[in-house]
């Protein structure tokens, strides 16, 4: 309640200032939180992405005649600090809404805060299913394709493989656990003949890759599901290569095709893995060309998937506020349900039923080209096709 009052007061004050001709009244403040200090490899391109979007939006006259400004905060890698940051954005900065977040636990913490304080929250990156389903809330929307959606895309490909014995390796925290669980459930449903013969759960960021590789090998799987990423993935690839872990085996891997994780591997990038990712240099659609050109012109660097996420996040916010015609929370929620946003992969829609966007992902195979990892045979999988039906969602999501 206090939030409402203070926002009303703030808007009132702004309106009063506006009467006297100040330009400051003509802006909409967006609050943004991410793990800048803890995961710079993702957040730097992400920040460049949303900054580009803000520049484009404001150059085109802003939203409803007002310019968008962003107040950006670091969550220092902790959910509790993210709540502090969210509180600062809402109570002190008087932002119209909050967006961002990277890890699932931070996304859920901000989501709970948003529901408590009745603030609009657009979760950009967190992948956990809970954020739109089991812990879904009317104040929260999510942009990226969730764990289940990516698992479904990969399970489709995995079902086509002859392999019957599968082993999994995933970081031991919520993301890894729920990715493995979703993949297992979906693949077993398609292929009841499949056996799960082994699982490894290295701690995130602390994989002891040699023993892990040997332990997977000892289970004699015909195919492997990998969910590790970042430095853990590097170690696993190196140890696995040297030990012949991947020889004669199919590998299905979450996120590995994203430039953030594929590029550091250079000429050691794995070949023939089935992955989700972002083959930025090979996507030739008008939407993506325009984005790529603008991004490269501004930064003299190529976009990562984080750049697309950051860019689309701000474009979505602009679309929602434009459709709502105001920054009133209830109007923004009503507007966001079913809003269509044009993003570099094509148009997406935020579903009314569970507030999940239909942004999809590229699924393809990794290969080596000119000493660098690339994706080949990829195809864009529209997220809408990998989301459960409305009836199923009603069972998964608390109805409000």
């Amino acid at each position: 309640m206090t939030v409402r009052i203070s926002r009303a007061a703030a808007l009132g004050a702004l309106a009063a200032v506006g009467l006297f001709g100040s330009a400051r009244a003509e802006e909409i403040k967006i609050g943004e939180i991410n793990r800048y200090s803890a995961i710079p490899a993702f957040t730097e391109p992400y920040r460049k992405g949303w900054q580009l979007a803000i520049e484009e939006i404001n150059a085109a006259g802003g939203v409803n005649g007002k310019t968008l400004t962003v107040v950006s905060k670091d969550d220092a890698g902790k959910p509790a600090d993210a709540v502090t940051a969210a509180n600062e954005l809402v109570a002190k900065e008087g932002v119209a809404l909050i967006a961002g977040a990277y890890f699932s636990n931070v996304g859920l913490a901000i989501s709970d805060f948003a529901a408590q304080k009745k603030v609009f929250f657009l979760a950009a990156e967190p992948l956990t299913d809970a954020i739109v389903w089991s812990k879904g809330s009317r104040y929260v929307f999510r942009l990226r394709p969730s764990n289940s959606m990516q698992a479904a895309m990969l399970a489709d490909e995995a079902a086509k493989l002859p392999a019957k014995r599968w082993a999994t390796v995933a970081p031991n925290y919520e993301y890894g656990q729920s990715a493995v669980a979703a993949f297992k459930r979906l693949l077993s449903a398609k292929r009841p003949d499949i056996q799960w013969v082994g699982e490894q759960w290295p701690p995130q960021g602390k994989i002891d890759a040699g023993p892990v590789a040997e332990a997977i090998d000892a289970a004699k799987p015909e195919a492997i599901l990998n969910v590790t990423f970042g430095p853990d993935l590097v170690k696993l690839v190196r140890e696995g290569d040297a030990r012949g872990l991947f020889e004669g085996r199919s590998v299905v891997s979450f996120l590995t095709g994203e430039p953030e994780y594929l590029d550091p591997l250079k000429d050691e990038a794995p070949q023939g893995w089935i992955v989700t990712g972002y083959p930025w240099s090979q996507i030739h659609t008008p939407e993506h060309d325009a984005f790529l050109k603008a991004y490269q012109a501004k930064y003299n660097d190529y976009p990562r998937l984080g750049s697309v996420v950051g860019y689309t996040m701000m474009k979505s916010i602009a679309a929602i506020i434009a459709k709502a015609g105001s920054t009133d929370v209830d109007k923004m929620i009503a507007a966001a349900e079913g809003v269509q946003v044009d993003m570099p992969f094509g148009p997406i829609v935020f579903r009314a039923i569970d507030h999940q966007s239909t942004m999809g992902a590229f699924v393809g195979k990794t290969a080596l080209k000119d000493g660098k990892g690339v994706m080949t045979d990829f195809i864009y999988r529209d997220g809408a096709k990998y989301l459960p039906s409305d009836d199923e969602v009603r069972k998964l999501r608390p109805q409000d």
Partner: protein
Amino acid sequence: MDLVFAQMTTGLASAASLFLVASGLSLIFGVTRIVNFAHGAFYMVGAYVAYSLTTRLDGALGFWFSLFAAATIVAALGAAFEMTLLRRIYQAPELFQLLATFGATLAAEDLVVLIWGPEDLVGPRAPGLQGAVALFGKRIPSYDLLLIAIGPLALAGLWLLLNRTRWGVLVRAATQDREMLAALGVNQKWLFTSVFALGTFLAGLGGALQIPRDAASHAMDLPVVVETFVVVVIGGLGSTFGAFVAALLVSELNAFGILVMPKITLALAFLVMAAVLIVRPYGLFGKAPAAARALVGVAARPWKPLRAGGRAGFVALVAVAALAPAALGDYGLAVASETLIFILFAASLHLMMSVGGLASFGHAAAFGLGAYGAALATQWAGLPMLLALPAGPLFAAIGAALVGWFAVSLTGVYFAMLTLAFAQIVWAIAFQWVAVTGGDNGLLGVWPAGFASSPAGFYWLTLAIVAPLLAALRVVVFSPFGYALRAARDSELRAEAIGVDRRAVRRRAIVLAGAFAGVAGALFAFLKGGVFPDALGVPTSVDGLAMVLLGGVETVSGPIVGAAIYKLLSIWLVSRIDLSKLALGLFIVALAALFPKGVVGALADWRARLGGSGRAR
């Protein structure tokens, strides 16, 4: 059988890299008594420098030269760090150097991103050792075989250095009795610098040797420093051979453990450490330290209870604090509540650390148990806030009693490490037991009751709980129990001679401090609307230590001032500055260098010099 062989060799290879880093830490601690938190940072810098060099210098020669050069550069950095910073603060209270090295670590994490960029850097593989050798039907990476050879070679080299050179004799003498060595006219300054350089050389080499296996990243320091501490303590502080055996033990248990229970890696090393310390309080090969000649933790000025003026001052301060809602906005009040909570947390740690001489590296466990206790009481028992709050201190006190029962016979760093082990085990349980604790997503929806739901209401509630508890802690310090605790800290023999039951007194202090931290944790859960495993994590414990040390470990009011400065500054920096860790780290280093007695300690000195009555407040 071939699997056993494969796991054994990978375990040996991991052990070798672990040993290199751990032996450096052990050397530094043995001689200088510094808990070098920055050891992981030196390891990280070693990896980054090695990346830069190996990607620029071609050929096998260039590669191996690069690794060696990287370690040498790290050693030079280490020596410079020792000469410019640590030399100033050797005389500071025990553990104070931890604060400086912690600040340096924070700064280093941001610095490497600033210098090398945010992406993980993957260097080349070792020339000639990219492949694998088939042994017993298993392919063993040739680089692993090299590492397996390096481990014992390094051990042999260190043994020769320590046992067959004059320098080694001095190092061993210093490890055993620093004062005696100084009395014999040995220049300790250069001995310390050279030991620190060698120790950081080993850390840098350990990091550089990871280049063919690992990616250099800005977060690789913390896991390494924690794991090497565990290894050093299991082996026995100052024992190089012990570190070798412990590295083997931890690595092999890890390699085989994941075959049986893949998720155990989270806590395995700490389980081993706890088991070893309970059976052998000084580690596998450590010896009980010689009886301290100087009294430990003696304050420059005896502590005195507040007189009427001081008490009135405290009441006035609380009264002013109660008026804060008139001046601060909603956000300011939330920050003020958080600061009050951490003041209570730091004050409870102070009771153990300064009054009891029991530095805990795992005080976050009590804080986190308090938070989980309150959250579970609301989530599972459905209790309202006021009834759920007491569950916090109850949980924390039970946890502390358990730890106290095992840890009470340990002292110094061994006590600190056993508390760390317990905290990490509790953390692993909270992280892993998803059904009850929600795993790393934590427990959400723990919002305060209606009357405290506004920021001002919650702030008043926090103040109404924290202020009396701070007063109570002060009363405890100057109660007969507090004197007994200080007596047990300052001289065990004399305390026992006058009838102080050292163990009973310490056990009570641990439980009391745990309960107070539990109150702080319970309030924290309601402030944040939830609780997450990192409330129990190493960084929370280290924050608590930094607060107490910053304020002044030898003072009574130090933790209050230290916690306020640290918390407000870190919230402000994180909110304002991109490179907040760099700024906070440098600030801590500067404070450590300028005020070796902490901020309150420096103030007291200053007052004394001005001819005041010289009370330690």
